[in-house]
């Protein structure tokens, strides 16, 4: 009797598992924040509603540990089906052999046809093969506070580095008003942006080289740029901004202490929340003495682990996520630039005043020349800290700009750039 009962139960379980076969996709994000988690979960809910039997489990590790966690999970082949790959993670994961080659998916994808310029190249950064489906791009722009600047009879945003310096210096009183919103921790290479703006011949494929193949740090223009960069800190920024991160930056900008800021588009989400509409504006990055400036093209995307057992379903989700309406929702809420050109036409938000800075830059690729970091170089992960450390020494006057440039040059020579 017992045996029969047991067998029946077992059969029932087996049968039901066949009938209601369900798939669980495990997906991990790296730019986690509680808000971003909610945004992605909303898209997941829609996907699950459209695909009965499929559940997507979102893993949101704390931001600072996320990159390490992805690396460790992938190297141990922990169950994952979709992984967010930031540009900085890409080369490491590819060399680990853990990312599925996505070419076969992308070539058949309708969406890839509508990608804005540069996205294809970005996806194929490593080995000239697409290992990810980009979901957003990040280009820096200038944020400013007209209300604060008006107090000093300044209208509009600075158009050049020189103008920016003049305005910032003019309004700085060293007490409760400063000019530029500096950032000392995790500089995310604002220094590079300033340095490059002193050039007019940067390699579009690598911002640390000139078109003629010279390392920029060897060039005398880099020294000018670096000195300008240091002046900006010493003359127009609060002293402790050397220890500021993104958080302090945004808060200083919001409080009006420093009305000029250069940041990524994800700042918009936070600013829209903290400031009433129209209090801040964006403008193109100020150009350097050469009349040009070289923004980099940052990106993030979805990849599929090569050991995933649900690759096709994972791809289905990725395509769903990148549908114009979903991608628009994601980019607007989180603060990123969409990869799909249709969104810029469809959604008025992306042509609103908030996007003025980007719109103008993209319309004039001659002045605002997009370039890229050498992220496919193996030393890139070390460079970040190396550069950050030297930057702090520079700001504290513990190293001369000349010496710093020598160190930078040596670093990249050793890396064989």
């Amino acid at each position, binding site marked *: 009797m017992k045996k029969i009962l047991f067998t029946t139960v077992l059969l029932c379980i087996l049968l039901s598992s066949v009938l209601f076969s369900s798939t669980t996709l495990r997906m*991990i994000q790296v*730019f986690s924040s509680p808000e971003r988690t909610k945004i992605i979960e909303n898209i997941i809910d829609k996907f699950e509603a459209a695909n009965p039997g499929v559940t997507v489990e979102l893993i949101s590790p*704390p*931001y600072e540990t996320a990159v390490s966690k992805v690396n460790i999970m992938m190297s141990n082949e922990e169950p994952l089906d979709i992984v967010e790959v930031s540009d900085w993670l890409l080369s490491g994961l590819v060399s680990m052999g853990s990312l599925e080659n996505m070419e076969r998916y992308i070539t058949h994808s309708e969406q890839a046809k509508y990608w804005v310029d540069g996205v294809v190249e970005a996806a194929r950064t490593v080995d000239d093969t697409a290992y990810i489906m980009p979901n957003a791009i990040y280009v820096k722009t200038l944020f400013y506070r007209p209300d604060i600047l008006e107090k000093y009879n300044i209208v509009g945003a600075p158009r050049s580095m020189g103008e920016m310096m003049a305005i910032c210096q003019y309004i700085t009183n060293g007490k409760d008003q400063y000019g530029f919103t500096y950032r000392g921790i995790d500089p995310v290479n604002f220094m590079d942006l300033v340095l490059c703006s002193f050039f007019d011949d940067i390699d579009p494929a690598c911002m640390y080289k000139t078109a003629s193949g010279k390392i920029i740090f060897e060039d005398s223009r880099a020294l000018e740029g670096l000195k300008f960069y240091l002046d900006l800190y010493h003359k127009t920024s609060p002293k402790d901004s050397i220890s500021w991160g993104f958080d302090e930056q945004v808060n200083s900008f919001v409080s009006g202490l420093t009305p000029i800021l250069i940041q990524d588009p994800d700042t918009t989400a936070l600013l829209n929340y903290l400031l009433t509409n129209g209090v801040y504006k964006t403008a193109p990055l100020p150009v350097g003495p050469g009349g040009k400036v070289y923004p980099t093209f940052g990106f993030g995307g979805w990849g599929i682990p090569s050991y995933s057992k649900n690759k096709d379903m994972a791809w289905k989700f990725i395509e769903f996520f990148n549908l114009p309406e979903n991608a628009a929702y994601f980019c607007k809420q989180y603060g990123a630039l969409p990869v799909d050109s249709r969104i810029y036409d469809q959604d008025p938000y992306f042509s609103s005043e908030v996007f003025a800075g980007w719109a103008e830059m993209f319309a004039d690729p001659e002045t605002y020349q997009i370039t890229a970091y050498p992220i496919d170089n193996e030393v890139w992960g070390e460079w970040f800290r190396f550069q950050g450390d030297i930057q702090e020494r520079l700001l504290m006057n513990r190293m001369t700009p000349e010496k710093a440039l020598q160190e930078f040059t040596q670093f990249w020579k050793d890396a064989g750039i």
Partner: protein
Amino acid sequence: MSVRVKKAISKTLKGLALGLYLAFALAPILWIFITSIKPPEDIYTFPIKYWTQKPSFEAYRYLFGFANFSRYFRNSLFVTFFASIVSTFFALFSGYALSRFPFKGKGILMIFLFFTQMIPAYLLMIPQFQMFSSLKLTNNLFGIIIIYIGLGATFSTIMAKGFFDRIPVSMEEAALIDGCNRVGVLFRITVPLLLPGLAAIFSFSFVNNWNELFTAALFLDSDSKMTVPVALYSFISKAGIQWNVLGAGIIVALVPTMIVFFFAQKYIVAGLTQGAVKE
């Protein structure tokens, strides 16, 4: 100066010093509390607002509503409680053995226990992860419990040995002569005497486990399995820190350890003093 005046002066000075220290200890958490009940626009202001006109518990509502904090709280309680209880029991046994039985190599064993305290957590992380990954114990609260037991067992054993050393063996010997068996002696005679010590060991593990961050952040994936420290850490994102929410989280996270601590502090001192008082 009369003796009475001298005494009064010394009493006032003492009170003053105690008061000053209390202020030093409490000020930071008080400020965090004030920050946690400020509306967002009052947090970054010039000049700083020491009090807010419209105190709000929005941050707390956010924690338990938007951020599912009660779930993390339950997970943390479960993991912490379980791991602390088990490691306290483990320590009870091994501490007893170390205290009561002379045997060869005991000195080396103590040095060895001591040595394990010197090992930095990051040295263990990758090997532990590889091991747990192959055992399919990642993203599993029991996996975390096992790790926490490991973290706590050593120091708890050393503590337990110290406590046992302070309890005279004469009672146990008497009970043994009366025909009680060894396990009986341990539980009926020694453990009741050791209760304050066990409370101290337990609360020590509790505090450590409750606050553990980096292992949990690496070993747990699912939102439904998150612990409180990881959740708090999640409020630091690329977009910065939400100070009022983080503050609220810190305050809420402090409650269980404070409760344990309030109960245990009497016993901790008592447990540590025990042997000497009996002298």
